[in-house]
Each structure stands twice: as structure tokens, then as C-alpha cells.
């Protein structure tokens, strides 16, 4: 029975993925139709190449990858902390990464090699610092206190956000940067961003898929997992690095985008159950599709101007999350 459900969900997601790609390609502020797209595919011209490939396709793919990374990160964290309320934003990784990225930007560290910039390194470093801090503080004599975890995460995240705002306030003349880093945007997405995030996502995805069985054991408690042959410490370390890497690389290309990493894995677990072997892949695809549609809304809902995507994900995500919580009760 669950097998059937899982297959049904995955095929539905792939269908939505193609639908999302299609409307992302065909709809935009410049009126284009399927015929234009077809003509472009048959004999390409420069204008349409720029609009279809360099603006719309790169943007849709980047939104997909960021959404997938954030929800995979959320799925890992929720398993890791055995708490459905965990997510990259809740435990403070996103805010920490955003602080690192802004710091690198303000220090003028624009050095990059192979599309991998110092900004990414900073984002990862400070994201990882925050999540480690939260991890250490919420551990009391080797036992996790879930309330402490959430509260520490929220506090650490708020601290990082305030430092980010401080840097932006002092160093930047424009409000635009603040909006980008605190609410997220794909407005300036290009293929270079994809070059950064794609290999990281694939690597992290394969890693977590490989260790999904161990995650299933960890959920039963560290002692049981250890006795069943899982090397708990090593697995935990790897998962923490992987989830931080996913969240921080997302933040460094698109700013903080809330809610995706929280609701998507949560919803997927309600739909197909807690087996991480299926949870990871389904969350990734669902998160990607969700963010692709959100970004489509962000750029088409008002003609002539664009909404920061964080507004859309929160507006769609929050009510839905409340609905889910109510359902369960």
C-alpha cells in the first residue's frame, strides 16, 4: 500500500515538474506562446535564446535546485533532531549563512574559482557555526531537549539576522540589498548560480540517499541505532555537514527563502510516511516544484514589478502549515 502511494506521489511530482517548466518557459512579461517556443527550438534566434534560455530557463532551474536543496536540508534536519518543527530557517542555518554571505560581500571578497566563491565558503562557515552552536547548547548530558533546540535555534537565527541587518544598514546605500538577503529573489538568476549549486546539490543528495537507511535507525534513538550497527557519531556529523551545505549554498545564490525547508518535508512525511529512503527524494522534488511555481507567481502576479519570493512562500506556506497542524490534531 505505501509503495503504491509513493509511486503515485512521485509520478504526480514529475508531471508537475514538467508543467512548471513549461509555464515558466512560455509565460513572462514579454508575450510568448507555445508557437514561439517551438519556432525557437526549430531555428533559434538570439532574442528568443536570451529570453527562453538565459532568463526563463535558468531562473526556473535555479528555483528548482534551491527549493530542492532547502527541503532536503529540512528533511535531514527533521530526522536529525527527531522534530517535525526543525528546518534550515528554524535552527538558524539560513540566517547564519546569510550573515556570512553579506560579510564576504562587504569585505569585498569577490574571489572565486570554478564558480565557487569565497562568499559560498563564508556562508557555509557561519551557517555551520550557528548550527553547531545550537546543537551544543541544546544538548544536556548527551540528551536532546527539543524545546531548548527550537528556542536556541530561533535565538541564534535572530542574532545572525540582526548582525546581517546591521552590516547592510551601515555599508549599503540601498534598500534593495536588504530585501534580497532577507526575503530572497531569483530576479538576477543566471547559469553561473546553477554551476555553483548544482554539483553541491547532487553530491549532498547522493550522500543523504546513501545514508538514508542509517537515518531511519537514528530516528529510533542513538543507542538502538548503535546496537543495530550504525556508527552514530560519524553519520550524525555527515548529516549535519550535508544539511548545512545545502542550506548555505541556497542562501548564497538566492538569499533567505523561508518556509520551504519546513513545510515541504513535513507534508511529504504526512503523505508517504517516515521512511527516509523515499522521504529524501520526494521532498527534494516537491520542494523544487513548489519553489518553481512560487517564483513563477513572484514574477508574473503583478505586471511591471516583482515580488520578493519570500513573501510568496510565506503567504502560501504559512496558512497551509496551520491547516496541516490542525489536521493532525
Amino acid at each position: 500500500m505505501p509503495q503504491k502511494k509513493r509511486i503515485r506521489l512521485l509520478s504526480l511530482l514529475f508531471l508537475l515538474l514538467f508543467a512548471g517548466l513549461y509555464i515558466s518557459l512560455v509565460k513572462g512579461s514579454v508575450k510568448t506562446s507555445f508557437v514561439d517556443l517551438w519556432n525557437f527550438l526549430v531555428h533559434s534566434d538570439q532574442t528568443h535564446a536570451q529570453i527562453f534560455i538565459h532568463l526563463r530557463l535558468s531562473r526556473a532551474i535555479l528555483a528548482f535546485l534551491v527549493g530542492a536543496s532547502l527541503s532536503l536540508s529540512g528533511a535531514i534536519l527533521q530526522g536529525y533532531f527527531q522534530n517535525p518543527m526543525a528546518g534550515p530557517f528554524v535552527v538558524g542555518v539560513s540566517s547564519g549563512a546569510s550573515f556570512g554571505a553579506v560579510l564576504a560581500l562587504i569585505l569585498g571578497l569577490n574571489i572565486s574559482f570554478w564558480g565557487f566563491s569565497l562568499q559560498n565558503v563564508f556562508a557555509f562557515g557561519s551557517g555551520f557555526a550557528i548550527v553547531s552552536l545550537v546543537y551544543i547548547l541544546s544538548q544536556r548530558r548527551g540528551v536532546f531537549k527539543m524545546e531548548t533546540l527550537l528556542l536556541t535555534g530561533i535565538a541564534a537565527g535572530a542574532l545572525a539576522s540582526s548582525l546581517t541587518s546591521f552590516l547592510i544598514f551601515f555599508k549599503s546605500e540601498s534598500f534593495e540589498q536588504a530585501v534580497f538577503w532577507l526575503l530572497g529573489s531569483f530576479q538576477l538568476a543566471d547559469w553561473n548560480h546553477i554551476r555553483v549549486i548544482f554539483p553541491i546539490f547532487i553530491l549532498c543528495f547522493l550522500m543523504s540517499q546513501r545514508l538514508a537507511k542509517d537515518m531511519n535507525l537514528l530516528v529510533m534513538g542513538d543507542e538502538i541505532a548503535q546496537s543495530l550497527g550504525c556508527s552514530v557519531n560519524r553519520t550524525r556529523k555527515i548529516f549535519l555537514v550535508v544539511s548545512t551545505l545545502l542550506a548555505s549554498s541556497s542562501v548564497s545564490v538566492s538569499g533567505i527563502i523561508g518556509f520551504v525547508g519546513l513545510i515541504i518535508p513535513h507534508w511529504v512525511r504526512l503523505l508517504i510516511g517516515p521512511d527516509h529512503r523515499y522521504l529524501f527524494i520526494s521532498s527534494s522534488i516537491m520542494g523544487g516544484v513548489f519553489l518553481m511555481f512560487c517564483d513563477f507567481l513572484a514574477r508574473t502576479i503583478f505586471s511591471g514589478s516583482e515580488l520578493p519570493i519570500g513573501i510568496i512562500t510565506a503567504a502560501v506556506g504559512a496558512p497551509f502549515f496551520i491547516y496541516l497542524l490542525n489536521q493532525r490534531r
Partner: protein
Amino acid sequence: MKTILKFAAPALYFLFIFNPISHANQSLTIKDDLGNTHVLGDPPQRIISLAPNVTEILFALGLENRIIGVTRFCNHPPEAQTKNRIGGMVDPDLEKIIALHPDLIIAFRGNPLRLVQRIKSLDLPVFVLESGTTLESVLSLIQRIGRVTRKEKTAKNLTDHLNRRFNKIKERLNNVRTRPKVFINLHGKGLWTSGKNSFMNDMVREARGRNIAGEVTRAWFSYNREELIHKNPDLILVLAKTEKDFLEVKTWFSQEAHLESIHAVQNDKFSFLDEDLVTRPGPRIFEAFAQLARILHPSCFKDEK
């Protein structure tokens, strides 16, 4: 591209030496303020402006028929509003820009750097200008836009005219003894004012006034109330879009009990300047300067009428 330039440069050099006509042409390239080299060819025919002041300069240079796109903030001259809108200064619509097939996009400091780089990466011909912080720098801004649009002559005439006007007003102020203390207040954002790195500051200085926020090295920021009372300005200069907004600010200042001790409030010294006029580094900023000089030193302009 770079290699082409490498080969082309010596060739051009010889052309200059042996061809007396191209001597008059000076060089054929111009650098923008990001250091990118821009080749000057035929006059651009399809120009997109990414800022209101750029639009005003383009119109002043007589290029109205070559402008194909402006931002939603470009409201002057009124004909600018009939042009294609390509979005705002920080969120222009890249698709629309591409579809308009521009042969020149003029960006300004108000456009985020990331955005300008994205436009460049789409192989669009973008020319970026820093704003500077003095009235003098507006003249060179106009000349550079004149150069890149191949309207050098019109630009020269325009800047000469503006410069003459500028100097005439400065001459009138030569004998001024007192320099009134001015508090600049932008309507609608609390005590939002402009510091050292702004056109407003230079304008007040040139008009023989003292900007009380002039020692703060920022362009725009929110001023402290205590500091305002302490500095005690003689005049409050309100930058607003409409007369109604101006009156609103004036009423606010007059009704706040703790601001009673300020000279400007006691003597009812409030003046109104059009926000668009003073915040856009374009030809009209000299009109704003003339108005400000009259506000600060009316006695110097008595004989005018």
C-alpha cells in the same frame, strides 16, 4: 573581443597619424565608471534609460525620438511617460529590455551593481555612470552622456549654458556675509536628511548656507531630534513632491512641543523645494540651485524683477 581591440589599437593609431580628418574625432572609445571600454560607433538609435535623471538628460540633448524605454519613475518631461516602461530602477524587467533590442542602455548609480552585471552578462550594451556628489559633476555627467550618444555638440552647448547660469548666481552671492543654518528634511520619512556625500549638501554650500547635517559622511540618513534642537537651524528646507506634503511637514514641526525652541520654527521659516528637482542629478538641478539661492539670500536677487 579584447584580442580584436589589441590588434585594432595600433591600426587606429596609424589612422590617426596619417589621416587629418580623424584627428578631429579624438579617440573612438570611452570608458564608463565601472572601467568598461565602450566603442563609439554610429549614434545609437535605440536607447534605454535606467534612471529618471538620465531620461531628463537624454531629453535635454534632443534625443526624444531615440529613447525606446524608461523606468516607471521617469515622469519628466511629460513626454517621457509616453515611452515604454521597463520597470523600476532596482527591478527592471530584463525580458522587456531584451525584446526592445536596445543599442545603448544607460545605467546609473541608483541601479544595483549586481543588476548592471546581470545586464552585461546578457550581452546587452550597457553604459554605467557614477553620480558624483557636486553640482559641477552634473556638468561632466551630461557631457559623458552626450559623448556616448554622439551628441557632443549639443551637450557642450547645454553645459556651457548651465555653467553660465550657475556662475551668474554664484556671483550674486559673492558679497554674502551670513550663512544661514539649514536643516534639509525629506518629506514622509521622519527626520530623513542628507549628509556630506550628497548633492543637497553641495547645493546648500554653493548657495551660501550651512547644512547642519553636513559633517555626517552619508548621503541620506535619519537625523537625531536632540541634535536638531542643539544645532538650532535658521531654516527648514522641506523636499516634497507636492505643496500639500510640504504643508503637512510644516504643521508637524510647528505642533511638536519639544521643537518649539528652534529658530526656524519660532520664526516660521520653512521653504519648499520640489523633491524631483533636487534629488535628480540632471539639468534641472541648476533650477533647484537658483531657487535655493533665492530662498537663502533673497536680498541678493532684489534687482532681478
